């Protein structure tokens, strides 16, 4: 192909000049622009379920996964980190609900709600997430009970709302009755009533989940093992103080 081209010397001088001038202008134009400043964007309200189903073009599961990544990554925007306290939880819950609508068998929205967004240091927001997990649990108890079990622990130890924690544990006993639900999940109510601190309760729950072999995804295993390791370490003084203030989240 190269042999079919004429030498560079045949290009007219005016074309060389035009090319160099255009390149310089482009570089100068970009260099003269003010530097970009990272600005946190608010999470937009979720589209309707019907619009998302239409946009999925017959691939609701794939769109659900992509939507979950979009929501999950919203607290780490380009060049700026947004605290969970700054997120509008009603909107976040709306998005998580849409992901569940697209893929009802998916677990990631409820994991994010109970383990990530539920860990915010604001009791009102935490309650909103727990209420979301509880409401969605009712639609598929046998598959979704682990997230309500975690919500029960959060209700007891972070919100110090023992009746709420007991209600969640009781609902697991009453509704998660499938063969694949381990027996110890039904004993959660008694376990909640025990005078156990948050660290030990969470270790028992996560340890039970890991031991049951129910979790096979390597990323989730890693996430829960990390949580278990963190819980195994003695709390540092600031962490102790934070726990006393009931504000462990971001």
């Amino acid at each position, binding site marked *: 192909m190269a042999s079919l081209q004429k030498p560079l010397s045949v290009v007219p001088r005016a074309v060389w000049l035009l090319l160099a001038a255009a390149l310089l202008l482009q570089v100068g134009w970009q260099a003269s622009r003010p530097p970009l400043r990272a600005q946190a964007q608010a999470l937009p309200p979720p589209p309707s379920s*019907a619009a998302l189903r239409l946009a999925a073009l017959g691939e609701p*599961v794939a769109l659900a*996964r992509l939507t979950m990544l979009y929501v999950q990554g919203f607290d780490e925007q380009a060049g700026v980190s947004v605290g969970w306290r700054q997120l509008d939880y009603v909107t976040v819950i709306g998005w998580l609900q849409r992901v569940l609508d697209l893929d009802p*068998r998916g677990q990631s929205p409820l994991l994010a709600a109970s383990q990530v967004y539920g860990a915010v240091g604001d009791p009102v927001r935490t309650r909103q997430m727990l209420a979301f997990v509880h409401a969605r649990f009712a639609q598929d108890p046998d598959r979704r009970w682990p997230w309500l079990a975690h919500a029960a622990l959060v209700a007891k130890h972070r919100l110090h709302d023992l009746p709420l924690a007991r209600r969640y544990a009781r609902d697991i006993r009453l509704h998660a009755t499938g063969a694949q639900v381990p027996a110890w999940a039904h004993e959660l109510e008694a376990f909640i009533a025990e005078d156990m601190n948050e660290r030990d309760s969470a270790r028992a729950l996560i340890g039970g989940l890991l031991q049951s072999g129910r979790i096979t*995804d390597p990323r*989730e295993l890693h*996430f829960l093992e990390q949580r278990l390791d963190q819980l195994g370490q003695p709390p540092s003084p600031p962490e102790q103080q934070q726990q006393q203030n009931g504000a462990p989240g971001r």
Partner: protein
Amino acid sequence: MTRMMLAMPLTIARYTLLEALRNRLLWLLIGAALGAVALAGFLQELALTESHALQAALLGAVLRLAAVFLIATFVITSMVREASDKGLELLLALPMPRATYLAGKLAGFGALAVLPALLFGALALALAPAGQAALWAFSLLCECWIVAAFSLLCVLTLQQVLPALAAALAFYVMARAIGPLLLMSQAGGNASSPGQQVLGGAIDLLGLLLPHLDGFTRSDWLVYHGGTGADLLAIAAQTALYVTLLAAAGLFDLYRKQI
């Protein structure tokens, strides 16, 4: 005579396939597969949980789009080039019915669609049980056949790359969105304004005319392994019906052409 009638479409199909291979379509398919694996692998690392499901769902969706896009583009550009080089006129001047020419072209493009189905199906095998991966690959093959047949009809009718590609794209998007569109139309079934009634009627008509590609090559087969023999039969039947319909429409147009 019968033997010759059979040999002619096979020869046309063979040269159509050869043209695709000489256009490095296989390399493009391999490139698309590698790109999809890299993208799904990257996004998998961002997932908090269900990373395998995320990889399978995204890989399935991206590979499906890549296969359909490459097949449709090749069918349209190949046919337009043949028309520009006067190859179509030369072939139609030979003592053979026009149906033989169309059958040969359809067979060539159909054989070409086996390449992405096999290659991408082999990738799906790494993500799902063999039965589900095979169903997904077969469904991808059927989807590519329908798209190839529609692209052929578009290019025979519209004769130019851009309008034919736009029409094929519109057909594909509508065929994949028709399920949710019908549901939305049914949900608004009590609409009283004439505009809404006309729109609802148009969607119902499209639902009758279009193949429901939203039920084809579903990535949730790779994620939840829920594909069944009934899905396979429905896809095979729909493909046979629709490719026959498109071939008949193509023949109708081809016989009316002044060449």
